[in-house]
């Protein structure tokens, strides 16, 4: 009984290295203030990747248009700051709420069909929103982007600075908060039912799970989290432009998950760190051709496998599959 409860609860317990990792992240803008802006960017895309992992890794819903919610959150937060009030936290909540509502509406489109249908439908949604933001230029600024977003201080005390330290800590705090909630979510009975319908929707239905409703719920929640990431970007950069809806953004976040690993919450975070740092380093060396190296890295990663890539010792033995069958 005790042993059983322990092995059920084990995945939900915090590991010793986790607080250390977060301490390191929070210390970074202070230790290397010159890189605070990139820390902020990493925190934002990590949150975005976390959101995609909730639907892709933990519920098996593929999406090539997750930027729809990221962008909607960004524009909602930017417009709120410009037209209503500049308080960041209120704006963040409004951005999340907007994306959540959009997610609930869009969830109706992903309930039917196979993975390919979902890829197309999600891609289409992002394209529709991109074109709407382009066309409604009286509201969104069109292709010039939404400018003149001035943010107030966080909690009424911490002004956004040019170095981006406040921005980095603000984004990291939001990431941490939502990460902890997402952690609870994936290790809960609800999270387990979502894994079940990812593994086998037919059986999930046969044990009394309302598959469609569960999918709609997780899609809506993930949309809200993506909206939060978008809102953070708009708030910390004081700007929202059409590229928040771009296909690149949806594809990049998918790449980050592939790099870091799907169905593991730190996968998105790790992927975001690796992807952003690679981007930063390589484009510093060769600004025009950095995507070549990212592409090469991805091909090697997928062909060799993440585990083998991270364990150089295994390069010299036989591949695992062959060893096992031998």
């Amino acid at each position: 009984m005790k042993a059983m409860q322990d092995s059920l609860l084990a995945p939900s317990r915090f590991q010793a290295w986790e607080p250390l990792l977060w301490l390191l992240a929070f210390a970074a803008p202070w230790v290397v203030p010159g890189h605070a802006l990139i820390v902020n960017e990493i925190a934002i895309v990590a949150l975005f990747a976390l959101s995609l992992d909730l639907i892709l890794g933990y519920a098996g819903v593929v999406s090539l248009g997750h930027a729809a919610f990221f962008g909607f959150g960004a524009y909602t937060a930017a417009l709120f700051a410009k037209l209503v009030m500049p308080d960041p936290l209120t704006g963040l909540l409004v951005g999340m709420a907007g994306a959540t509502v959009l997610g609930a509406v869009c969830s109706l489109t992903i309930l039917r069909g196979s993975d390919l249908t979902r890829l197309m439908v999600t891609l289409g949604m992002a394209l529709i929103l991109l074109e709407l933001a382009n066309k409604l230029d009286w509201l969104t600024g069109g292709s010039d982007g939404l400018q003149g977003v001035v943010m107030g201080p966080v909690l009424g005390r911490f002004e956004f600075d040019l170095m981006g330290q406040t921005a980095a800590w603000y984004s990291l705090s939001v990431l941490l908060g939502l990460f902890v909630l997402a952690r609870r979510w994936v290790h809960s009975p609800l999270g387990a039912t979502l894994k079940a319908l990812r593994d086998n929707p037919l059986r999930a239905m046969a044990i009394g799970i309302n598959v469609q409703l569960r999918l709609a719920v997780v899609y809506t929640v993930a949309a809200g989290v993506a909206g939060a990431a978008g809102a953070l970007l708009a708030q910390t950069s004081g700007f929202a432009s059409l590229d928040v809806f771009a296909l690149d953004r949806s594809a990049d976040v998918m790449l980050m998950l592939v790099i870091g690993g799907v169905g593991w919450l730190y996968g998105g975070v790790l992927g975001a760190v690796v992807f952003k740092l690679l981007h930063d380093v390589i484009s510093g060396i060769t600004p025009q051709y950095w995507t070549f190296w990212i592409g090469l890295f991805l091909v090697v990663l997928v062909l060799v496998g993440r585990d083998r890539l991270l364990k150089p010792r295994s390069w010299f033995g036989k591949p695992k599959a062959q060893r096992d069958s031998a």
Partner: protein
Amino acid sequence: MVWQTKSTTGFGMSSAPIVLKTEGLVKKFGGITATQDVNLSIAQGARHALIGPNGAGKTTLINLMTGVLEPTEGRITLEGVDITRMAPEQRVQRGLVRTFQINQLFASMTPLETLAMVVSQQQGLGGRWWQPLGANRKVVERCEQLLSLFRLTEVMNQRTEVLAYGKRRLLEMAIALACEPRVLLLDEPVAGVPAGEREELLHTVAALPANVSVMLIEHDMDLVFDFATRITVLVNGAVLTEGTPQEIANDPQVKSVYLGHSEELTHG
């Protein structure tokens, strides 16, 4: 005499109330009639077997009962409630649960996680996101019972995809029982199980709780005649006959149409 050994459940067919009933059930796929006017009654606590040659429409009938398919005509009632148009998951919530002929499991989860998830769902905790799976004492207790009943305790922390076939077959049934069924439809529970792992499975089928009404679909005549107190024979989508194992064993129609070889039925 095999059929005298298993009336331990003690329910006479005539006295026990009917829990699951189909009336004039018809299913047509285009021009093909897969189910023809099937009237079937499962009594409370029944050990009812549904047999028939391949292609007789046994699985179609299960799919109609569980809501995977919608009947062309007819009515299905569960404990007096019309469930003909009810969604599959609602039927499960009302206690109509099935197993699958081909394992339908959750490959990446362990048997313990799987059962904890199913039991949580069954106890109405499936929508909870703020507490961890396994936080609820009653859920863990039920998992413990199920794991030991289905002899899965040893392998409870292994991923389902690496389990031996026999163990997976056991988990298939454990999941169904974790749903606390009133009526359990077992679709060929021992299909494909190697001889060495078979005994374990037969024991657990025999040990299913007496208050659960069971309909067994099976090709294995040893199991059918060991287990069932009532047998329905399905041929070409229609009920050929229904009766006690003794009646079925002696029915010349069944011998000729379904079994062909009369010696298969005289083994016991």
